């Protein structure tokens, strides 16, 4: 069919092809104007459609950003409220524990100070003075003795009395000083006790001050969240992403632990439910082992929920304490029983492995060896079987963090995807616009021969017209323009005296400008 068409004009392919080319170029030349319009309008339509689509996606992106911010702020608000509540609880505990005894402490301090004051007063009493008549007697005793033995004897007696009185006064003074020293020595432990009590009070006040500072910090955050400030939203988002990756890492570790647990109990489970029955393409024994592990994780979730460590199930969190404690006991009991079952299954696995090994050796014609210390891996497997369920129970904590932070991560990812879509749409629109322009030029390149002929004809006509009207008018030499553009220029020349009309309703900004605006 193609060959027939090719040889339609002549038996010679070259001639026929030349005729076809001539026909094609002629048709393209004649259809130049509508073809240009078609190409341009198509490119423009794609460009506008893509821009509209990008604008629509941009609206969705803004809504997603707004929603993400709302979510992250709500989570941050909740977390900050919990922090503040916990800080207040701590302060309350400190006040109840340490400062509730303050009246007693005050009384003790007052008593101690009073005792100190009394003792001090007692310590500052004046020492006993020698009697006042003693100076008179001393003066008489020092009178000159004029050889009279009676007088001399009297004076000596008086002097002896003076010396005796002086010694008694000295003893009394020494006794008084010793008493003062004793009282002052007794003051020391009282001072120390007083200092200790004051130090304790200072520590309590300092701790309270620290807690108050923490409350102030959280309150500042809370106010920022309440005011929807951007910096706090960014900070919370970064924190949430960190939480997401940490929780994901811990969950990965938990999954690995779950796999080990599965390997421990899958084979012995075949002894209970059969090793050759299938459910939906999976071994029933494998499904049973998985179910046990899942139930253990579920019990762990309920246990931690009952302990109010996690808050995944509001129903449990809102239970009254009595019911919650019952649930705690029930979930722990089930977890304990399942851990016991797993330990026994792990032991059974060890027995089965031994049996199989013995059979294998028997089939291979090798006598069975009694391995020493075979009990060590047996006990190890049992312990692992018992411990792993409890370890898996704690998966609830990272799971809660993961779920909460995944909302933020999903939101961020959604925004990133939407931005990529916007950029792609704008790029495609701009590309289509540029391609339409290139196609117009390409079209003209195909029909360049008739266009050149048209150019020569136009120039000839113009030259003839110029010669005829040279005497009266001086026209500028009109440059060659394609037919369509020449018409446009002609229209503009005709209507140059008129008020210029806006041919387009609105100027369409370039692609780069759009992107720049979008980024800003």
């Amino acid at each position, binding site marked *: 069919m193609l060959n027939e068409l090719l040889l339609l004009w002549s038996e010679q392919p070259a001639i026929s092809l030349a005729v076809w080319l001539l026909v094609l170029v002629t048709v393209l030349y004649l259809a130049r104007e509508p073809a240009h319009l078609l190409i341009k309008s198509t490119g423009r339509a794609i460009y506008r459609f893509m821009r509209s689509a990008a604008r629509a996606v941009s609206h969705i992106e803004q809504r997603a950003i707004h929603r993400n911010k709302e979510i992250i702020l709500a989570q941050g608000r909740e977390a900050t409220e919990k922090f503040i509540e916990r800080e207040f609880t701590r302060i309350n505990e400190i006040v109840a524990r340490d400062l509730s005894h303050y009246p007693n402490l005050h009384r003790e301090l007052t008593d101690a100070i009073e005792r100190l004051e009394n003792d001090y007063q007692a310590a500052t009493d004046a020492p006993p003075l020698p009697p006042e008549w003693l100076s008179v007697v001393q003066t008489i005793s020092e009178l000159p003795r004029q050889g009279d033995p009676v007088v001399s004897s009297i004076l000596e007696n008086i002097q002896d009395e003076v010396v005796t009185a002086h010694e008694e006064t000295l003893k009394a003074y020494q006794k008084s000083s010793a008493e003062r020293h004793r009282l002052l020595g007794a003051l020391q432990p009282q001072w120390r006790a007083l200092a200790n009590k004051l130090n304790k009070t200072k520590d309590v006040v300092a701790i309270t001050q620290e807690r108050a500072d923490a409350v102030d910090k959280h309150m500042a955050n809370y106010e920022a969240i309440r005011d929807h400030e951007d910096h706090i939203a960014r900070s919370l988002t970064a924190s949430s992403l960190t939480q997401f990756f940490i929780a994901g890492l811990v969950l990965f570790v938990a999954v690995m632990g779950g796999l080990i647990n599965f390997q421990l109990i899958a084979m012995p489970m075949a*002894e209970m439910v*059969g*090793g*050759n029955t*299938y459910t*939906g393409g999976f071994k029933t024994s494998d499904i049973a082992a998985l179910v046990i592990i899942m139930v253990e994780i579920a019990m762990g979730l309920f246990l931690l929920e009952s302990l109010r460590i996690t808050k995944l199930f509001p129903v449990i969190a809102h239970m009254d304490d009595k019911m919650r404690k019952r649930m705690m006991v029930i979930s722990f009991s089930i977890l304990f029983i399942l851990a016991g079952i797993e330990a026994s299954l792990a032991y059974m696995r060890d027995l089965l492995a031994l049996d*199989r090994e013995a059979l*294998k050796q*028997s*089939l291979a014609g090798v006598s069975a060896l009694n391995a020493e210390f075979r009990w060590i891996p047996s006990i190890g497997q049992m312990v692992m079987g018992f411990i792993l369920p409890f370890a898996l129970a704690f998966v609830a904590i990272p799971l809660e963090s993961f779920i909460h932070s995944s909302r933020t991560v999903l939101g961020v990812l959604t925004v990133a995807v939407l931005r990529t879509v916007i950029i792609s749409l704008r790029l495609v629109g701009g590309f289509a616009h540029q391609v339409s322009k290139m196609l117009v030029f390409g079209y003209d390149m195909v029909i360049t021969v008739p266009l050149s002929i048209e150019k020569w004809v136009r120039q000839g006509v113009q030259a003839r017209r110029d010669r005829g009207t040279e005497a009266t008018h001086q026209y500028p030499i009109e440059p060659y323009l394609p037919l369509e553009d020449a018409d446009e220029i002609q229209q503009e020349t005709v209507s140059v005296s008129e008020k210029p009309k806006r041919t387009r309703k609105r100027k369409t900004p370039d692609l780069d400008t759009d992107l720049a605006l979008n980024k800003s």
Partner: protein
Amino acid sequence: MKTLLVSLALATLALTLSACGQPQPTNKAVFLLVDTSGTYTEELNKAQGILNYLLATLDSGDSIAVARIDSGSFSEKDVIAKATFDERPSMANDQKRVFKHDMDQFVATIKTGSAHTDITGAILQAAEYLQETGAGEKYVLVFSDLEEDLQKGHIRDFPLELDGIQVIALNVTKLRSDNIDPRDYLNRLAQWQKRVLDGGGNWRVVNDFDRLDRLIAINAMDEI
């Protein structure tokens, strides 16, 4: 709300799984035919090795049977031992021990070979047993030189029905006449291959026992 969603997802998964219909059986059934004719009895120790390999390979739910090829093999009397392993691994291990004991006893008691060799009858007997097991994979292992020597009056020249059965010829030894004209050996193999393929089965020859692991796809003992 989250719990409800998770429950719904699990219920949907369970319904989807249950709606998948009856799953195809994945268990295996193996019938080992041991040639006891003439001087081939000297090769019985190798047959014991193959049986040990099979016992180590097969798992709970699989079936195995061993029968001798003698003058008239289409008979239950020629079945030495057969078993379908229990679903419980410990019971399956006990069954394997008993099976091995039966085979050891058979090898120990057999002294002289049969006068004739009815391979076709033995294959028919094996195919009948395998089809009854309804296993997902069915194997007939023919431990023989494949030289059929029928008793006078026995009719075996009719097509075999071996749909879905893999026939594996093991230890196909060369006869003295094969050494004179090797084409006899090749013709013998080609003839059996044609009969098996015409009957709807698959045909393989394994003479190198170092490649026994290719007999059956999965080695269950490696799972531990």
